[in-house]
């Protein structure tokens, strides 16, 4: 056989969406009904940004399918006591019993959907940045049919394990839930720990590789030399959590060591708020009649509304003018003959003291390096050059600054994202070819039409759905346990708002150690967990365990047993990646570097028969809907488009009979027909069978829609930078609301609403917080413990897959604790020694991996491990940083985020 199985052979097309960079389109070879190998879907060559290649994770799906540790029947717990050391007493039960049990619990949550504290009785937790939705079939229609809020605040790691500041501010400023360089055109990237080659998926890897060969230069500024750093031209080993100082110094170089006319003056004057005049109370000076922000017109020598035709607004200087100023809660000041300055001048003043020399000492990097990088960023921006895209002439600005995950969350993240985006505006490299561009919109929406989210709002900017902070509309009573609409206006209240609230805050509230003036929340009466493992992926995991043990009813959809499922009451085995059915959108612009010139739909279909009694998620959803009397509503939600597209429009009607229970194939056939109609402009209405044969269907997507600038120009809109007048007002109003309600425990977070952020000493912040709250000496914790993304594992939930462990072990850092070899030698530690790592909240142990590519004051644990229940993974003895990361209000920033890092000490245990 030579390793090649004989028999009845076929190839089946499907998709992988184990991470946010999906879908990857693949084919699976099936021999005599057994899945044998994964290959790229070569049929998508030329249509997909990377010609249909798939990353390493889908290759694990074969072992996932036949993993002997799979749970293949519904199970129920017989031991009511929950705890790590309690045997749940699992017994197999029928689907009938399982569904009846779950339905009864759900029915008991109705009709009063909220508990006495006003929190939802039903909670749902998932992971993978929402990617499990691409495996849940029509289940979201059940939530939509529920009739009230479902609590999503008990997160598995989001707001700590995400690019949180970028999500919050990127979408406000340029519709960028995530950002990337316009890699095909970019020539110079300054990357602060952005590990794109491990986290960006296949399109990113391909685009980055093409760019490197073309000549793109990259400087990687990070405490340890990552996978991505390997491909960079320079590595600058910066001291952890000092990135804001570096970025502020770059601003200083551009604003104080270069002339203004070296910057992109046209862009600043026409597409940003740089000319807007700032009045004494910190708000825009406005025209008394129209209320419009004023600029200083150099031609007329007076202040005029920002949109006055023919005006040439000043960027620098101080001027005498009059007008009104609108503060918080309707407060208004009238000014006459006051001295005002444009926002650009204010910015210049703001960074005057942030010199490269100052930053060099903080960051532990050479002053000359900071200056060289800033100068190169400016020189490479090609200010004045243009390029034609889709028949339209656009600025060509091939420079971008990228930020990594740990730069993007917790204190200092606002500073970094703000300084980075302002730097992009100074050279006109925002949302133009070659520059920094956004990918998707989740706060503003619609998710798959970024251009449509560019809608005019106030003061020449785009709209943004901030949650209200005015006295009349502020939501004083938290809607869900983390109170996102109450405390974090940035998130809005849309479909993706809850996952952007503070999961750390939610869990701390459950533990009675946050928001002391609010009542401690009750656990949800029903908690559903799917494709995540908070007891591994969140912070202070041991403490989280105690909270979960108190939950009265937990339903876990499971693949294998895991740490969180150990606490469940019912386990349900849903179809895995190769067993279920779902049609989803693909293409356009989406996540990290998904920039397609096509868009359309792709099918996940049963490649092989389900193992055991695993069931399709859509079937499970319909069965539960029927049992709790929501079948009509469930079908109605499918009809209105919860499965991705409405089943009835003016052009077609594929809607389902709402009174009947429909099979998964019937539901997806209708969705396929609607999708076919949409993608062909009404020429076809092919159903499920067509997609099963062909796998996907796409139509052209205009490349011009990769960039927001044309849409901004068409509507004469400006990027809301550099001065954050609106956030300043919102912060003031939020402070008023909270203080009116005697809430002072959010005061530290309120300091994060600066109109232009000042540098904060984050190392001092950590040391102070540790000594104040944990009765330790900060000097005893001399190392920063950091983590790093593993492409082989990230988001995949694949720690049980032998193949992933095997191939991941070829990449330095997996399976142990990375440490600088010279520092280790000084401490008497040798490669392979076991060490104990202790933070203020926990201890773990692991094997040392010595490297030169790590700062001496840093240790690194790649990925997320520390399993004690998950089969296979629990035998890997791989440490995780998560259990050592403290949850404390002092570490939560104004957007609700905290960083996944910790100050630690180490001790050698022996070989």
């Amino acid at each position, binding site marked *: 056989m030579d390793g090649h199985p004989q028999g009845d052979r076929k190839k089946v097309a499907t998709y992988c969406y184990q991470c946010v960079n999906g879908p990857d389109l693949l084919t699976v070879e099936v021999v005599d009904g057994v899945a044998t190998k*994964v*290959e790229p879907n070569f049929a998508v060559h030329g249509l997909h940004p990377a010609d249909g290649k798939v990353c390493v994770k889908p*290759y694990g799906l074969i072992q996932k399918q036949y993993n002997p540790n799979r749970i293949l029947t519904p199970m129920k717990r017989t031991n009511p006591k929950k705890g790590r050391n309690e045997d749940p007493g699992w017994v197999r039960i029928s689907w009938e019993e399982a569904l009846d049990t779950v339905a009864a619990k759900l029915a008991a949550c109705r009709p009063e959907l909220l508990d006495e504290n006003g929190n939802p009785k039903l909670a749902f937790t998932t992971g993978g940045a929402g990617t499990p939705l691409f495996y849940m079939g029509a289940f979201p229609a059940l939530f939509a049919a529920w009739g009230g809020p479902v609590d999503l605040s008990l997160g598995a790691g989001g707001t700590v394990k995400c690019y949180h500041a970028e999500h919050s501010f990127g979408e406000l400023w340029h519709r960028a839930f995530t950002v990337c360089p316009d890699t095909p055109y970019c020539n110079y990237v300054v990357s602060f720990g952005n590990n794109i*080659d491990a986290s960006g998926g296949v399109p990113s890897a391909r685009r980055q590789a093409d760019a490197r060969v073309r000549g793109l230069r990259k400087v990687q500024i990070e405490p340890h*030399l990552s996978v991505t750093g390997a491909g960079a031209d320079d590595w600058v080993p910066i001291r952890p959590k000092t990135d804001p100082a570096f970025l502020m110094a770059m601003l200083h170089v551009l604003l104080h060591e270069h002339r203004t006319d070296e910057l992109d003056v046209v862009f600043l004057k026409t597409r940003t708020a740089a000319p807007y005049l700032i009045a004494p109370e910190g708000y825009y000076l406005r025209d008394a009649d129209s209320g419009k922000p004023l600029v200083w017109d150099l031609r007329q020598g007076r202040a005029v509304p920002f949109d006055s035709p023919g005006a040439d607004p000043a960027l620098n200087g101080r001027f005498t003018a009059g007008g009104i100023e609108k503060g918080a809660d309707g407060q208004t000041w009238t000014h006459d003959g006051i001295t005002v300055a444009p926002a650009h001048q204010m910015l210049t003043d703001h960074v005057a003291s942030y010199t490269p020399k100052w930053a060099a000492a903080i960051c532990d990097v050479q002053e000359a390096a900071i200056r060289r990088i800033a100068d190169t960023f400016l020189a490479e921006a090609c200010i004045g050059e243009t390029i034609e895209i889709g028949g339209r002439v656009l600025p060509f600005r091939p420079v971008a600054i990228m930020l990594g995950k740990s730069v993007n969350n917790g204190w200092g993240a606002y500073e970094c994202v703000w300084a980075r985006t302002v730097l992009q505006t100074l050279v006109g490299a925002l949302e133009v070819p070659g520059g920094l561009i956004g990918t998707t919109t989740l706060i503003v929406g619609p998710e798959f039409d970024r251009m449509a989210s560019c809608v005019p709002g106030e003061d020449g900017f785009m709209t943004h759905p901030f949650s209200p902070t005015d006295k009349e509309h502020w939501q004083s009573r938290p809607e869900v346990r983390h109170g996102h609409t109450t405390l974090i206006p940035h998130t809005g209240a849309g479909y993706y708002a809850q996952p952007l609230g503070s999961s750390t805050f939610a869990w701390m509230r459950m533990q009675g150690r946050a928001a002391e003036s609010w009542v401690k929340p009750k656990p949800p009466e029903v908690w559903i967990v799917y494709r995540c493992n908070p007891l591994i992926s969140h912070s202070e995991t041991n403490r989280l365990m105690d909270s979960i043990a108190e939950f009265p009813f937990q339903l876990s959809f499971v693949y294998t047993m895991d740490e969180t499922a150990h606490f469940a009451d019912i386990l349900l085995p849903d179809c895995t990646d190769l067993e279920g059915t779902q049609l989803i959108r693909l293409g356009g612009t989406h996540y990290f570097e998904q920039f397609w010139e096509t868009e359309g739909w792709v099918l996940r279909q049963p490649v092989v028969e389900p193992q055991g009694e695993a069931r399709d998620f859509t079937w499970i959803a319909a069965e539960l809907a029927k049992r709790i009397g929501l079948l009509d509503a469930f079908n109605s939600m499918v009809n209105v488009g919860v499965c991705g597209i409405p089943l009835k429009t003016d052009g077609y009607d594929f809607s389902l009979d709402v009174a009947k229970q429909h099979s998964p194939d019937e539901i997806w056939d209708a969705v396929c027909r609607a999708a076919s109609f949409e993608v062909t402009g009404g020429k076809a209405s092919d159903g499920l069978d067509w997609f099963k044969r062909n796998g996907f269907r796409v139509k052209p997507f205009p490349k011009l829609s990769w960039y927001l600038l044309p849409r901004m120009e068409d509507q004469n809109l400006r990027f809301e930078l550099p001065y954050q007048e609106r956030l300043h007002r919102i912060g003031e109003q939020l402070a008023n609301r909270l203080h009116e309600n005697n809430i002072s425990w959010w005061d530290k977070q309120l300091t994060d609403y600066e109109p232009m952020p000042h540098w904060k000493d984050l190392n001092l912040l950590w040391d102070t917080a540790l000594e104040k709250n944990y009765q330790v000496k900060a000097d005893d914790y001399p190392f920063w413990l950091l983590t790093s993304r593993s492409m082989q594992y990230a988001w995949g939930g694949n720690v049980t897959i032998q193949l992933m462990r095997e*191939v991941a072990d070829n*990449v330095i850092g997996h399976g142990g604790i990375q440490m600088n070899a010279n520092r280790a030698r000084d401490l008497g530690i040798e490669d392979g020694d076991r060490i104990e790592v202790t933070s203020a909240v926990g201890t773990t142990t692991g094997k040392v991996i010595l490297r030169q590519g790590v700062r*001496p004051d840093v240790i690194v644990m790649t990925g997320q491990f520390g399993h004690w229940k998950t089969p296979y993974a629990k035998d890997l003895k791989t440490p995780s940083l998560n259990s050592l990361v403290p949850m404390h209000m002092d570490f939560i920033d104004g957007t609700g985020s905290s960083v996944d890092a910790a100050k630690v000490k180490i001790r050698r245990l022996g070989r």
Partner: protein
Amino acid sequence: MTRYVMVADLRRCIGCQTCTAACRHTNATLPGVQWRKVIDIELGDYPNVTRTFMPVGCQHCADPPCMDVCPSTATGKREDGIVTIDYDICIGCAYCAVACPYQARYKINHAEFAYGKDPIATEEKAFDGKRLGVAQKCTFCSDRIDDGKARGLVPGVDPDATPACVNSCITNALQFGDIEDPKSNVVKLLKDNNWFRMHEELGTKPGFFYLWSDE
């Protein structure tokens, strides 16, 4: 004449191991047997450190030392340059594994599967007992090449005639083709870029070329 060679562009490789996994799938090798893999190399002293990912495996040498030491003539070389092992003749002495300067050969005496002694369904379907107790290594997916050529396909161009690692490579770091064909992709790559071969000084004349930005 034809000589098939592999070209690995080190500027492109990110060490993702997709090729490693694809090879394991396509050739149904046992756990730990990686005919193709990418090694992670860190050089220098802090803070002057570089990190490079390097795909490795059988170099399909024109003058393969493994063939010279083989007492049973199990190791051979095809006319198209692919170095082969005849499992029926191999006596498992492992001289070849010792002689190979690229550490490209494996010898497994007992089957251990992904989850222990019992194979999962896929492993059961694809298990090849002939490979136990003998030398094994990368074949350049010669069966795919032969099957593809028989159907008029071009190795290195058509996926069905191309090694699985090349097909899978997400950065296009791996390319495959006929170095004797002046129009082939590999000839163009070698003409347009700096390249080196591993252990060139040993005179093995490897059929595996590495592109790099420096001489």
